[in-house]
Structures are given as structure tokens and as C-alpha cells.
């Protein structure tokens, strides 16, 4: 029997059975899904392209896109911020390459890995120096304040 021809009760039972099956054979289902996606990649892309061509100029589609954008704007901005922060903190290859390529016509992939490694080491060292300097400055200002307060009390 086709799913569309089933009664509501039967549909519910089928869904529950399917859910139980997927939970029980998680790995097998995941591997099958992956294989299926890989096999039908081109076909799915063609369907998507066709669909997009058909709906891209319709008012309804534009409205839906705008609504989705507005609905997820804050979440997406937050996510982008976290991603940027993580990229800077971890000093990933892409971040270093982007830094090297900034304000030049060279592309990030034009730089050899040796230069990327050297630049990363340089950045790491610079950050530590900055951190240590900050600590020193804090310490010296604390000492000065302490000295002033002790002079005042005397």
C-alpha cells in the first residue's frame, strides 16, 4: 500500500515504526543516506536549479526569503561572530593566508605553507608579547597607586 493511500492511524504507526528503526540502526541508515546522496547528487542539484529558476522572480518566494532572513538575522550574526572569533583564536591556515593576502592582488592560495607557518609563529609571539606587556603595565600601575597611597597616609 502506498503511503498516500493509508489512513491517518496507519500513517502514524508507520512513522513510529520508521523512527524506531532509524534509532535502532543509526549507523546503517546514516551510511545508506550518505551513499544515496552521493549517487544522486547531480540529479538533486538539477532539480534545485530548475526549482530556483521557476520561483526566483515570484513575489511569494521573495517574501519568504526576506522573512527567513529577518527571522534568523540575530542568530546568524551571532554565529558569524563566534566563527570569526574562533578563527582568530585558533590561527587557522585560512585566517593567516587571508591576512597575508589582504590589500594585495595575490590570492590566499598563492602563499607557500612555509610562509604561513612562519607568520603563525610570528603572530603567536606578538600576542604573547602584547599580553606580557599588558600584565607588566597593570603591575606597574598597581605599584604606583600603592606607593602614592602609602605616601599620602604618611
Amino acid at each position, binding site marked *: 500500500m502506498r503511503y498516500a493511500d493509508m489512513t491517518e492511524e496507519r500513517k502514524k504507526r508507520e512513522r513510529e515504526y520508521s523512527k524506531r528503526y532509524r534509532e535502532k540502526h543509526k549507523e546503517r541508515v546514516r551510511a545508506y543516506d550518505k551513499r544515496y546522496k552521493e549517487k544522486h547528487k547531480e540529479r538533486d542539484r538539477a532539480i534545485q536549479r530548475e526549482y530556483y529558476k521557476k520561483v526566483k522572480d515570484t513575489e511569494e518566494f521573495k517574501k519568504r526569503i526576506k522573512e527567513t532572513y529577518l527571522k534568523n538575522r540575530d542568530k546568524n550574526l551571532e554565529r558569524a561572530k563566534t566563527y570569526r572569533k574562533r578563527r582568530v583564536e585558533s590561527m587557522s591556515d585560512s585566517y593567516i593566508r587571508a591576512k597575508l593576502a589582504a590589500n594585495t592582488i595575490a590570492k590566499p592560495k598563492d602563499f607557500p605553507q*612555509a610562509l604561513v607557518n612562519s607568520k603563525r609563529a610570528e603572530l603567536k609571539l606578538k600576542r604573547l608579547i602584547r599580553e606580557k606587556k599588558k600584565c607588566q603595565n597593570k603591575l606597574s600601575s598597581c605599584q604606583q597607586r600603592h606607593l602614592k597611597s602609602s605616601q599620602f597616609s604618611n
Partner: protein
Amino acid sequence: MPTETLEELAIQQLKIYDRLLAGDIDIKLAHEASVTANSVNSIVRTLIVGGTLDDTKKPKSKLLQ
């Protein structure tokens, strides 16, 4: 371009990083080392950027034009 030199430079910098972290050397020395490394990296970068220049593309920066 000798990549070994750049790798050596990276290793040297990491050694200085570790020594600074352990408190074996002072900030001034580490800073000098980082400035030298920055100069070397900048020169290599400039050479690479210069090598990527061709007639079909116009550089974004006016300094490179």
C-alpha cells in the same frame, strides 16, 4: 625561494615564544626577534605578491601600480 629558511625562522620564533613563556628571556629581546621575523615575512610576501602581478590584472593598491 628557500622554504627551509622560513621553516627555521618559524621554529626559532616558537623557541623564543617558549622561552618568553617560561620567563627565560625578557620582552625586549622577544620583541626584537618578532620585528626581525616580521621583516623577513614581509619581504617574502612582497616577493610573492610581485610575482603574481601580470598585465591582465590591475593591482588594487595604488602603490603597486
